[in-house]
């Protein structure tokens, strides 16, 4: 137990490091990503952070990246937006890069047309891919998508389809276009190729997970994330990092899984996408996902505490992890709020179920809120029928209901018999009325016009 305690303290220290000493972690944080997503991440951080120092650093790093990518358009935008940090447009660089840009584009387009004219399908594909990447890097991601989606003009083997799908998905996730993501994931899965490559399957799973999360289906999303294999870590860097997957997977699970599903290896959540394998898929007892959780031990700690009903720990740790979530690109405000709301509701349910009566004065500090706020929350949940209980507002106790099944059943039978009789009578009347085909409300004899008249 002493070693456990030590671990907890260390974890907390690391977290504090992350939040307060941001300048240190920002660089290493961004190193985890590859490609144009770095810029997007840095700009998101710059937009959401209130720490001026952090913002300045993010902007500077972003400008550096943009210059590396030779992305003139976004470079100009960023400089203009964050001019207060004393960044000036490097006109020489812009000129030079513009010329380079034109040269490169011409070269790539020439390669493409030559490959097309000489009917070299393999080279044509490579050229299109190169053009796609070029445009993505230099800021025209929509054009990049069009090139990548047309990568397989003409005959294509199943493995080509999968490759194209992977390329498209990367850009689609960058653009947060989840419908394209879903489209191309199914294209890849239906290509007929048995995808044996764990990297590709994990990538597809994570992509699907992100799309589902964006659409609010947290349970399904969690099921997807939990299938991921750590080997995808490197390829994944153009989309997100291993830490991000750990975060997203855990919070989706906490928002939607039952307690059994969190831990019990028997409760498989979803079948694997390859038909010959089924994995063990709970959150905590998962041979694959545990590697992801290693990268963020505080997330694992949170999930374990949640499972063990140690809610005071959970809600104490939650705010700092929320900060970490805010940096994330795919977890937007609504998703964050949903996570919190759903996880909290389930936590309350889990807390209350085993008891006959619960003292709200004891419960409130566990859930990091005042007794009055807790009472309001509980009343709301009771009205929503999430929990069945009744509140004694005087003594501040929550009582489990006494099950009086007999009177409940009697009431239901009485209501049913009454409604049966009434409905049958109404039915009989209607049938008898419709028997007389001419018995209906009609125009009066005086109404010879075609307008509808009132009788």
């Amino acid at each position, binding site marked *: 137990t002493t070693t456990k305690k030590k671990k907890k303290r260390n974890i907390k220290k690391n977290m504090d490091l992350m939040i307060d000493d941001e300048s240190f972690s920002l660089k290493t944080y961004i190193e985890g990503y590859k490609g144009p997503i770095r810029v997007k991440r840095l700009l998101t951080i710059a937009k959401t952070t209130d720490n001026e120092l952090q913002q300045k650093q993010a902007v500077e790093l972003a400008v550096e990246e943009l210059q590396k990518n030779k992305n003139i358009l976004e470079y100009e935008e960023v400089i203009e937006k964050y001019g207060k940090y004393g960044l000036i447009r490097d006109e020489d660089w812009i000129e030079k890069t513009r010329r380079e840009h034109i040269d490169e584009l011409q070269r790539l387009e020439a390669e493409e047309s030559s490959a097309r004219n000489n009917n070299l399908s393999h080279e044509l594909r490579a050229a299109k891919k190169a053009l796609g990447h070029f445009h993505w890097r230099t800021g025209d991601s929509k054009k990049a998508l069009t090139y990548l989606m047309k990568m397989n003009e003409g005959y294509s083997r199943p493995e080509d389809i999968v490759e194209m799908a992977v390329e498209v998905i990367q850009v689609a996730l960058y653009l947060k276009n989840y419908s394209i993501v879903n489209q191309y994931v199914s294209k890849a899965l239906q290509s007929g190729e048995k995808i044996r490559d764990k990297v590709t399957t994990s990538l597809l799973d994570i992509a699907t997970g992100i799309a589902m999360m964006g659409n609010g289906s947290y349970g399904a999303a969690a099921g997807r994330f939990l299938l991921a294999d750590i080997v995808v870590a490197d390829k994944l860097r153009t989309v997100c990092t291993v830490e991000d997957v750990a975060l997203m997977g855990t919070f989706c699970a906490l928002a939607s899984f039952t307690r059994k599903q969190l831990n019990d290896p028997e409760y498989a959540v979803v079948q694997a996408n390859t038909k010959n394998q089924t994995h063990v898929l709970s959150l905590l007892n998962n041979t694959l996902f545990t590697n992801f959780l290693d990268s963020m031990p505080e997330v694992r700690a949170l999930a374990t505490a949640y499972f063990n009903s140690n809610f005071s720990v959970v809600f104490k740790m939650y705010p700092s992890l929320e900060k970490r979530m805010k940096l994330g690109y795919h977890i937007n405000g609504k998703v964050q709020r949903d996570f919190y709301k759903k996880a909290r509701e389930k936590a309350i349910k889990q807390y209350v179920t085993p008891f006959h009566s619960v003292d709200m004065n004891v419960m409130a500090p566990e859930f990091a809120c005042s007794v009055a706020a807790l009472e309001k929350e509980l009343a709301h949940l009771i009205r929503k029928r999430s929990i069945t209980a009744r509140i*004694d*507002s005087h003594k501040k106790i929550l009582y489990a209901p006494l099950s009086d099944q*007999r009177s409940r059943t009697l009431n239901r039978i009485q209501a049913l018999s009454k409604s049966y009789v009434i409905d*049958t009578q109404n039915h009989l009347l209607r049938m008898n009325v419709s028997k007389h085909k001419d018995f*209906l*409300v*009609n125009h009066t004899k005086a109404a010879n016009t075609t307008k509808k*008249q009132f*009788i």
Partner: protein
Amino acid sequence: MQHLVDTIKRKTDDGELDKLVTELDQNLDKIRMSVSKLSPRIFETLPIANYTLGLCYLIATKAVIGTPKEDTIFMMQRILQEFDVKQARLASRKFGVIINIFTKQKIEDNQAKLVMPLLLSVLNKFQISKHHLTPIHSAYLSCALTCKRYAAASKLLKHQILEIEPSITGLTPKDMLLFYYYGGMVHCGLKNWDEAVRFFSIALTVPAHVLSSIVIESFKKYLLVGYLAEGKILKIPKHASVVVSRSLESFATQYIDFLNTLTSGEKMGKDFMRSTKSNETFKKDNTIGLTLQCIEAKKRRKIQELTSTYLTIGLSNIAELVNVNEKEVESLLLQMIENGEIRATISQRDAMVVFTDADDQTIEEAMKELNSKMAEAVELSNRMKEMDKKSITFRRIYMPYVTSYR
């Protein structure tokens, strides 16, 4: 005129009542031209009990022309008192006309109360069964409503209407609409909201090719009473004719807006009540009473919801949740406890309310009620079987589909 009287006399004496009906129907114009001279002296030549059929035609035709004068009213009254059932049923349409005009006139002359016993005796005599609807039903109800005799009206409404037979009873669709509209109003007066909803909804489902103003008024009340009965905005019944369901909502926009505000969960201040009271549409439709009751009902409903969430709750808390000021809360709760709408005890010292659970109904009471309901249900299903036999399954055109005979 004389010719008509002779025809009536001859045909009736010969027992050729059907032929008489046909002949009279063909000569309606002639009748219309001759009835101006009609007077109570006709009863000397044509005693009512023997010549009801012919007399119905004559008197009904006279009554429709302009406003009935005193002797016409007298003639109508005599017919209603002495008619022969068989002949009246053959002249059912005209009989219905007499009833409607007679009742309308009596109401205008403030004699509705006096007329009610007469109408009741006519009904008992004329009716085919307690389950058939006749024009007399709606006439009786309109009298009862005018003089606010709800108890008498509800006695009539106790019998379930299950059938109509327009050719024998002279029922017109308008009569049916009026019956269900008036019936709903009676139940409103007695605060039987569930029954009122039922009556208004039947009015909405009468088959129609044209929208009737009776249906529109029924709909407005249907919405309000539906809120009082079930706490939500009811939809138009799906059995309503297309014409009705399509255009009805546009005639009741004020009501739908009103109910939307009530159900939206927003806090309503005194302004809302004031604006409702002075609302022009509600004033014109005479529905201010119902709308104010709806506003009241909202508070009561909220309190009832509280009984399932809380065991004990402070008075100030209730006041806040239900949007009532604190002094009103206690009196409102007392009212509700006395009405039996909630079961609770108020502790003034702690300013707390404790909600108690219902006493469990004893098994014997419950079984008694269930048995009576089951008897009703069995009787109904027997009726259904009869109907099925008569009009559906064994009809010639369906036989090939029911049996394997092709």
